[in-house]
């Protein structure tokens, strides 16, 4: 009886870690402009951090061949020829970590031409850490039948 009660408590703790809405620091939205150089096969800068609610403009400058920039999760994209900077403006209403990647085949390593956009805090990562920690505690508390 006590065992299943502890297990229930444990599962609920897991759900809380995974889904409980946490108070997020509200920072006034700003306008941010980033010039991103694209080459075979990397962006520069490749890691960008903004706050949630910002209006972000990416100026994509291709420096060798035609490249694109597609943002996972936001499903927006832009493509630029060398000599023609292209702009993409969007509002960062979804917090978290999102990869952006090239969406114009630009050579062999094209599928791995990736950058990372972090909006606000990457809360999901911390929740995942929490779940992993909880999992270890769970395994240690209930070692299971000895072989």
């Amino acid at each position, binding site marked *: 009886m006590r065992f299943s009660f502890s297990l229930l408590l444990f599962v609920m703790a897991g759900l809380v870690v995974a889904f409980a809405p946490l108070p997020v620091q509200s920072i006034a939205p700003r306008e941010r402009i980033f010039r991103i150089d694209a080459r075979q096969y990397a962006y520069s800068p490749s890691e960008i951090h903004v706050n949630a609610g910002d209006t972000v403009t990416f100026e994509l400058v291709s420096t*060798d*061949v*035609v490249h694109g920039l597609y943002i996972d999760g936001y499903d927006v994209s832009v493509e630029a*020829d*060398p*000599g*023609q900077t292209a702009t993409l403006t969007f509002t960062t209403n979804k917090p978290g970590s999102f990869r952006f990647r090239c969406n114009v085949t*630009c050579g*062999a390593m094209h599928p791995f031409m990736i950058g990372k956009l972090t909006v606000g805090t990457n809360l999901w990562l911390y929740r995942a850490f929490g779940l992993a920690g909880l999992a270890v505690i769970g395994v240690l508390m209930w070692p299971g039948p000895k072989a």
Partner: protein
Amino acid sequence: MKRSELISRLLIITGILLTIGAPLYLWKSTPLIHAQMSEEGGWTPDTIKAEVGEPLHLQFTSDDVMHGFAVGQLDMESVDIEPGKVADVTLTFEKPGIYTFFCTRWCGVNHWRMRGTIEVTGTSSAGEDLPLDIPLYVSLGLDIDAPHESPVVPEMQPSAVHGRTRAENLDLANLIEPALYKASSPYQIFQQLDSTALLETEEWDVVAYIWQTNTTPESLANGRELYAQNCAACHGESGAGDGVFADDMAAAGKASMESMNSSIESMMQTPANFTDPKRVLGARPAILQGKILRGGMGTGMPMWGSIFTEEQIWDLVAYLYSFQFEYEE
């Protein structure tokens, strides 16, 4: 052996032979023109034969990055060639001759070298050929490689708006002639205005206005588009000679200087800076047209003679001056 074994073996062997043979046959019977970055080979094949009046059906594929196809002097819509996919183009030529086809999406610093030829034979269906014009700089006897620095530059950017107001009180009849415009640099026209009672800045404004009257908003828009697609990668989106390939050009220039042991100044090896008033205000339109037509003689400047029509080049030339002059909207 047992029948089941025999049939199974036959099926397997047939399957394998078909799997190897069918795609091989289909592959051999699909004549594709491969587009690759110039360093990897450019167009393969790079010469095509055609007949006047007969539709030429071409199939292109890119083996690496985004490329595009267009034929020079035809002012045709370019066709994108996506990596791994096939693009179909059908062309019909009315006049015989050697046409140049070229890549229309920047594919590296040597993108402009990616060219090929279409040899069209047969009799022209469009009447007699006009005799080829000789370029203006040739008929004027101009040396387009000679330096063309303007000794005087304006203090601020000349404005065609102000120029129009100033010009109302002047008799500009001969100064706005297209023939004079093409053959004279802005500085030379500026000098001609010394006879008026205008201040230097006002004279430059009038020059800007004269330059504006020698073009149209459509031409400037066309020139802007041509510049963005063909020139900005080296000359910079702001015209300052700082395009994404400017460093590569400088490095290549330095290397060729060292190997050629030539006396060409290193400034010739970086893309021209159109925001430099000394350089642009001392340049005649005919000189700029000549440089675009003929290209660089050892610099990285491509020759566009076989690619742009004469109208396209004049539109481009008109646009280049807009880095120096403020035109009316």
